[in-house]
């Protein structure tokens, strides 16, 4: 470790290796965001409200461009509700109107009633811009890693610390 101080370039190069791993992962994520036009192109299912289609821990890929057709009834969409942080994955069950201003109603396949109770106070329907993407693909189960990480935040710290140590101590 001490010898690193005498060779500032080598030390800088080692720190860089670690920094580039983080920044490349981040920029890949942002690249995916740009391509799919969604602020969050990959989400993890947190509840069982869409069973049997999706289970807790499934990883969903989203697409947020209406290139060929508008978002329509039957699509599974992910939407954000004002003042709530957690995006919700449910199916569009009704649609009134066309284009940007169409009114959409959603419902979880496994829920007894539609989502009006989940919407913000006074909100009875969604519009297109509430939606951050339609589900176009999924990988079952792998999302459990992030569920673990978010439910036990100390795991994140440990992981980052271990990765950082390895990157800095190992010269390869």
């Amino acid at each position: 470790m001490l010898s690193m101080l005498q060779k500032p370039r080598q030390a800088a190069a080692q720190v860089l290796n670690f920094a580039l791993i983080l920044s490349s992962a981040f920029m890949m994520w942002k690249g995916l965001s740009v391509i799919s036009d969604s602020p969050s192109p990959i989400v993890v299912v947190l509840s069982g409200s869409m069973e049997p289609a999706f289970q807790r821990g499934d990883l969903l890929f989203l697409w947020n461009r209406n290139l060929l057709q508008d978002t329509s009834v039957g699509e599974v969409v992910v939407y954000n509700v004002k003042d709530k942080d957690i995006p919700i994955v449910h199916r569009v069950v009704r649609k009134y109107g066309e284009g940007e201003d169409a009114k959409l109603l959603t419902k979880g396949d496994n829920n007894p009633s539609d989502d009006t109770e989940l919407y913000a106070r006074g909100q009875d329907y969604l519009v297109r811009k509430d939606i951050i993407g339609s589900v176009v693909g999924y990988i079952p189960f792998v999302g459990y890693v992030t569920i673990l990480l978010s439910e036990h935040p100390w795991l994140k710290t440990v992981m980052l610390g271990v990765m950082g140590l390895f990157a800095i101590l190992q010269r390869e």
Partner: protein
Amino acid sequence: MAEKITLYNLPDLKNAADDAIANYLNSIKFKQSHSMIDVRLALGYSSFILAAACALWDYKLGWDATKLYTAIAVAIYTVLSGALTVWTWKVEQGTIYQGKAPSGDDLFIASETKKMEPVYRLKIAIQDKSTGKIKAFKISKPFAEFFNESGFFVPKPFQEFLATNISVVGKADSKRIQAASEKLLNENPELLSAVLNAGSEKEAEATGTEKKAGGKRRKA
């Protein structure tokens, strides 16, 4: 300098030898240049700063307001990382020392090791100062010949290896050039024992002309 190396760790051996090359050449008046690693650091850190800026404005202003800038940043980041990859693969190629010899010629040394094979391999390129022609060649030496069994680096055989094989180094440090005859003896144990059996001190003196410790080394 007296750093103990784990002899089973190939990267450690390589790194110690890499460092020793720089120390040795700088000590015999080579002028080390850092331009290659500097370019790499510049490319790497500018792309990292770009990513950090992108993260910052995304965090402060949100996705929708910064969509366009994020798209541009992603494009530039891709170009920068591509340039960095090309630079390390095609230009640096594992270069661990670049510098100017006292004679004015440029010297580039790249090092590598192969998995499960404790041999230090060097790619040397010498650019003549007057003609500009590049002479490139490869040399190699087992690590066991310049690390002792407790894991300490032994400079002398290593420096002899460099001075004997790389002309510009030999020119700058001629006392480290291993006499051709001595090298021959070292590489052919039978010949060596034949010479030793002959037991003539004078002959040993004659072959190892300017090397005082020549006799000692042969026993090793």
